[in-house]
């Protein structure tokens, strides 16, 4: 399936004097080069899915976490890595931590992904809440990463330029 963007383009005035907008689908076959210039290649799925460009740095390798003496509910294996999101500007990589949380045993099928503004919290072992523990118990992993404005990330302010 190919993602199709729908940029809003003004199309004159309506009978009541208000401006109306029409949506024009744009895809790789669109001949309007001005529109393509603005919407094409925003995300390259091939590049995003390229594992070789992640340049993964292991900050904390797989280890058990979350179990208590009383119960194994919420017991997980976790790994903390830092990945290269992209070379945002020439010579400037945008790297971000990612915490991977999987059930204590077995291979998960699918995962829940979310982000946090508190990047520091990613460095600590994640303690699943009741809902997340239920996901893990049913073989669904968790992936947590940092979602934060570039100019508020220590050492990354230059990326915003």
């Amino acid at each position: 399936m190919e993602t199709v963007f729908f940029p809003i383009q003004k199309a004159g005035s309506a009978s009541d004097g208000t401006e109306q907008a029409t949506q024009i689908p744009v895809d790789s076959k669109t001949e309007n080069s001005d529109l393509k210039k603005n919407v094409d290649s925003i995300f390259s799925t091939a590049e995003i899915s390229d594992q070789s460009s992640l340049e993964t740095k292991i900050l904390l390798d797989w280890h058990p976490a979350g179990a208590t003496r009383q119960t194994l509910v919420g017991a997980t294996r976790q790994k903390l890595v830092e990945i290269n999101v992209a070379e945002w500007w020439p010579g400037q990589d945008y790297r971000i931590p990612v915490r991977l949380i999987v059930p204590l045993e077995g291979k998960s099928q699918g995962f829940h992904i979310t982000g946090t503004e508190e990047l520091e919290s990613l460095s600590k072992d994640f303690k699943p809440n009741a809902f997340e523990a239920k996901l893990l118990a049913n073989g669904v992993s968790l992936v947590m990463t940092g979602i934060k404005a570039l100019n508020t990330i220590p050492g990354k302010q230059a990326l915003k330029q």
Partner: protein
Amino acid sequence: MQKLFQEDFNPRYNPSRPWSMTQMRATTAAYAEVAYFGKGKVPGSGGSKRAISPAVALINDQGQE
């Protein structure tokens, strides 16, 4: 970056682009751990629709549901 965005509204320079890119690349990082992550449904959540929407689109495009 904001200045470039204001010139022609190219979403490439939208301040929210790094967020969705981050989630999409984190998805790639998870699937790189083949011994731990199998293919399956990928629900996403978060407070930023601008981050999660493109990520969902990409995951869908890649047939990762």
